[in-house]
């Protein structure tokens, strides 16, 4: 018999918590961005687990679309980071807290 789905869900919850903690505490924008990727992966793991538990392919299709959106998000986000760095020469969030250009 295979491993129960709740174990995977607990692992995904822990991974999500790690990512959330990273987003809240780290100051480097790039590392915060990587923590967001961690959270996205945790949610993907949850989707795949529920797809297996419910015998429904919809969960895996959702993960497919999440992967596409995450790739697009990374491209645009890193473009924004590069643009900010050109203007301010910093990637620390405390230095770019004001919206003024």
């Amino acid at each position, binding site marked *: *018999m295979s*491993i129960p789905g*709740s174990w995977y*869900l607990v*692992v*995904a*919850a*822990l*991974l*999500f*918590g790690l*990512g*959330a*903690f*990273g987003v*809240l*505490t*780290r*100051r*480097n924008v*790039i*590392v915060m961005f*990587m*923590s967001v*990727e*961690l959270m996205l*992966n945790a949610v*993907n*793991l949850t989707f*795949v*687990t*529920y*797809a*297996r538990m*419910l*015998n*429904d*392919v*919809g969960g*895996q*299709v959702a*993960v*497919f*679309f999440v*992967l*596409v959106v*995450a*790739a*697009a998000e*990374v491209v*645009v986000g*890193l*473009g924004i980071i*590069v*643009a900010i760095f*050109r*203007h*301010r020469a910093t*990637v*620390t969030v405390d230095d770019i807290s004001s919206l003024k250009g």
Partner: protein
Amino acid sequence: MIATVISVPQLIVFIVSVVIIAIGGVGLLSARYPVHAALFLVMTLFGVAVLFIEEGAEFLAAVQVVVYAGAVVVLFLFVIMLLGVDREEITSFAGDTVRVALAGVGVALILAELFIVATGAWVTGAHAVAGKLSAGSNIGVLARSVFTTYLLPFELTAALLVIAVVGAVILSRRMSGVAQPRAHESREV
């Protein structure tokens, strides 16, 4: 006792990949240099890919390795190299205990809620229209669902990717003439 219920090889693979995920995640959080954080991210993504395979999502595991551990992390490393490799964070956790404590409390609350949901609740209700996962091979079932039921969202992702590419080009293009004095001005202020 557990070994009698669950097959041993699966249990070993599960435990090893969870350990890899944990090391990668904690390393990502505590790394001083962004390059190390990116490499720890690769480690975590591989661990998740192994869990995908164990759950029967072979195609998604392959995509995870190719797109995430390949393309996305290379993109991260590209930007890190562009901005300077030896750029260390001024502080990672130390010196700001209030913020770290608040973040810890918030994350602990979320985790407690997720544990209750993960171990206690069972999802019931009608099956979705997407189809059964056990109807055939993983790739076949997934492809049939994506190209029939979810055809419109699939087409929309093409538009999304084009928008992302155009947006990235516009964002990272050096603006000629106009932007330079503004950047100089903001530095003086």
